[in-house]
C-alpha cells in the first residue's frame, strides 16, 4: 500500500547527477581546445573503471546493482577525478585513483549517501601523496607548446610509457601556474616579473584559466537550474578572494592577486562541483557558509604556506570531517520558535 503524498516532482538522483555532468561540458570543451583530445581518453578510462568497480562492490555487498548504477553518481565521480588530475597521466594512475575513490571512499562507507569524504578528492589526495611526480606533469597549453607529441604519441605514452626518441616529458608538460609561482617566489623573484612569463595569462595560467572559466559557466548553469544553491560557491570564492586580497594588499610583491587564486588550480572546480557534493557538505545554510569559508581559508594556507601545489583537495577533506559538527551547531530555528519580528 502506498501512502501520501501520491504525487512526486519528476526529479531523481540520476537526473541530478546527469545535469552536473552536463555542467562539466564547457570546461571539457575548453580543455579540448587548449590541451587536445587526450582528456577524452582519461574521462573514458575513469568512467569505465568507476562503473566496473561500483558494480563489483554492489554485488559483493549484496545490493541491487541496476538502480544504483543508474544513479550516475559513480560516473560523476569518475569525471571529477579525470578533470582534477593531469590528463596525460599513465593509464594506471587514473584507474588506481578512480578505483580507490569508489571502493574505499564510497562503497566501504556504505555507498551513495553515506560517504563522509568526497570520493574524488580522496582519489586526488591519495594520488598526490603516493605518486607526486606523476601528478605534476600537466600538459602545456597548445599556444605554448614546443614539440607536439600528437594524439597517437600521447596514447603511446599513456598506455605504453614510451616516448619518441629525443623527446623528454618536459617538452610538452610543465608545472602548474600555482607550482611555478611557488618555486619562483622561493627563488626570490617578485610577483610582477613572474607574471610576465609566457605561461601566465590575463587571469591565471594560459589555457587553464579558460578551463576555470568553463567551470564557472557550468556552475552558473547549475545554480540557474537550481541543482545547487548559491551558498557554497559564493562563500568559497568570496572568502578566497577576500583572504588573498588582504595578503596581496599587505605585500603585493610576494602574494598573488586574488583573481589569480580564483582562476588557478582547482578553485573553480572545487567551488561549483566538489564542495557542492551534497553528501559531504553541511545541510544548513549557515553551515554551508561556514564550511565553504573554512575550505577557502585552508586552501589559501596550503597553497601559500604549505608543501603541496594546490590546497583544494586537502581543504575539502579537512572540512568534510567537521560537517556533522557544523550541522549540529547551525540548526536553524523552526517555524514559530524564533524571536518574532513583527
Amino acid at each position: 500500500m502506498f501512502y501520501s503524498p501520491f504525487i512526486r516532482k519528476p526529479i531523481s538522483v540520476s537526473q541530478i547527477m546527469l545535469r552536473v555532468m552536463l555542467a562539466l561540458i564547457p570546461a571539457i570543451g575548453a580543455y579540448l581546445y587548449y590541451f587536445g583530445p587526450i582528456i577524452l581518453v582519461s574521462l573514458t578510462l575513469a568512467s569505465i573503471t568507476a562503473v566496473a568497480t561500483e558494480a563489483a562492490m554492489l554485488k559483493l555487498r549484496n545490493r541491487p546493482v541496476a538502480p544504483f548504477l543508474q544513479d550516475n553518481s559513480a560516473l560523476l565521480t569518475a569525471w571529477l577525478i579525470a578533470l582534477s588530475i593531469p590528463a596525460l597521466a599513465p593509464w594506471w594512475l587514473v584507474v588506481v585513483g578512480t578505483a580507490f575513490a569508489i571502493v574505499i571512499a564510497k562503497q566501504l562507507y556504505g555507498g551513495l549517501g553515506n560517504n563522509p569524504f568526497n570520493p574524488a578528492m580522496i582519489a586526488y589526495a591519495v594520488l598526490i601523496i603516493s605518486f607526486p611526480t606523476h601528478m605534476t606533469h600537466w600538459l602545456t597549453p597548445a599556444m605554448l607548446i614546443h614539440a607536439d607529441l600528437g594524439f597517437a604519441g600521447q596514447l603511446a605514452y599513456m598506455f605504453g610509457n614510451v616516448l619518441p626518441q629525443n623527446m623528454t616529458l618536459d617538452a610538452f608538460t610543465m608545472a602548474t601556474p600555482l607550482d611555478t609561482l611557488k618555486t619562483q617566489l622561493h627563488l626570490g623573484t617578485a610577483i610582477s616579473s613572474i607574471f610576465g612569463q609566457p605561461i601566465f595569462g590575463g587571469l591565471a595560467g594560459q589555457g587553464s584559466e579558460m578551463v576555470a572559466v568553463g567551470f564557472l559557466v557550468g556552475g552558473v548553469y547549475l545554480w540557474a537550474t537550481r541543482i545547487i544553491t548559491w551558498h557554497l560557491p559564493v562563500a568559497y570564492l568570496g572568502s578566497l578572494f577576500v583572504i588573498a586580497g588582504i595578503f596581496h594588499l599587505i605585500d603585493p610583491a610576494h602574494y598573488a592577486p586574488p583573481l589569480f587564486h580564483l582562476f588557478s588550480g582547482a578553485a573553480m572546480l572545487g567551488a561549483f562541483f566538489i564542495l557542492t557534493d551534497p553528501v559531504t557538505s553541511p545541510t544548513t545554510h549557515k553551515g554551508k557558509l561556514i564550511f565553504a569559508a573554512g575550505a577557502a581559508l585552508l586552501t589559501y594556507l596550503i597553497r601559500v604556506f604549505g608543501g603541496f601545489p594546490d590546497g583544494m583537495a586537502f581543504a575539502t577533506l579537512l572540512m568534510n570531517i567537521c560537517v556533522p559538527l557544523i550541522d549540529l551547531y547551525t540548526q536553524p530555528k523552526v517555524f514559530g520558535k524564533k524571536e518574532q519580528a513583527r
Partner: protein
Amino acid sequence: MISALLVMAGIAIVLGAVLGFAAIKFRVEGNPLVDKIDAVLPQTQCGQCGFPGCKPYATAIAAEEADINCCPPGGEEGIRKLAELLNKEFKPFGDNAKPKPKAVAYIDENTCIGCTLCIQACPVDAIVGAAKQMHTIIAADCTGCELCLAPCPVDCIAMNPIEETLSVWKWKYPVYALSPTP
C-alpha cells in the same frame, strides 16, 4: 621543567579534590540507579524474572546479581534500554524467556465462586470483588502478569490478548523495497 610538572600535578590534585568534594556534597540520597532501572522496567510485576516484582529485579541488576535479559514483558526493546542505561552489551533472551503479546485477564463471571484468592495474588489490585461474590477485573489497571491464573480453584480466568483497535493503532515502519539487507 620541574616547575611545569609540579604545576600540572598541582592542578590535577586540586581538580581531583574539587571533584571528590562535589561527589560528597551533591550525593543523591537513596540509590538512584535502582530507580533508573526500575523506570525502564515495564512494571508488569509478573515475577517472570525470578524476583517478586520489578523493583527487586531492578535492585538485583543494580547490584550486578541479575542479568539484563530476564524480563520478557519488556521485550527486546527493554533489554536494549537496559543495555544503554548500564553501558552493557545487548543480550538476547534465553530459551526459557520469550516475550508474548500483551494481554489482559478476563474472569468468567458465571464460573467465579468468589474465593478472593486472585485478589490476593494481583500485584496491582486490579481485581475487585468480595467473598462469595463474583469478581471482576479492571482491565485498564491489569498489567497482564498472569499471577491470578494459578490460584484460581475453578480456572475461570483467561488471558485475552489486546486487540489492535483504532485508538491504539500505529503506523508501520515503511518498507524499503530497494534494500534486501539493511
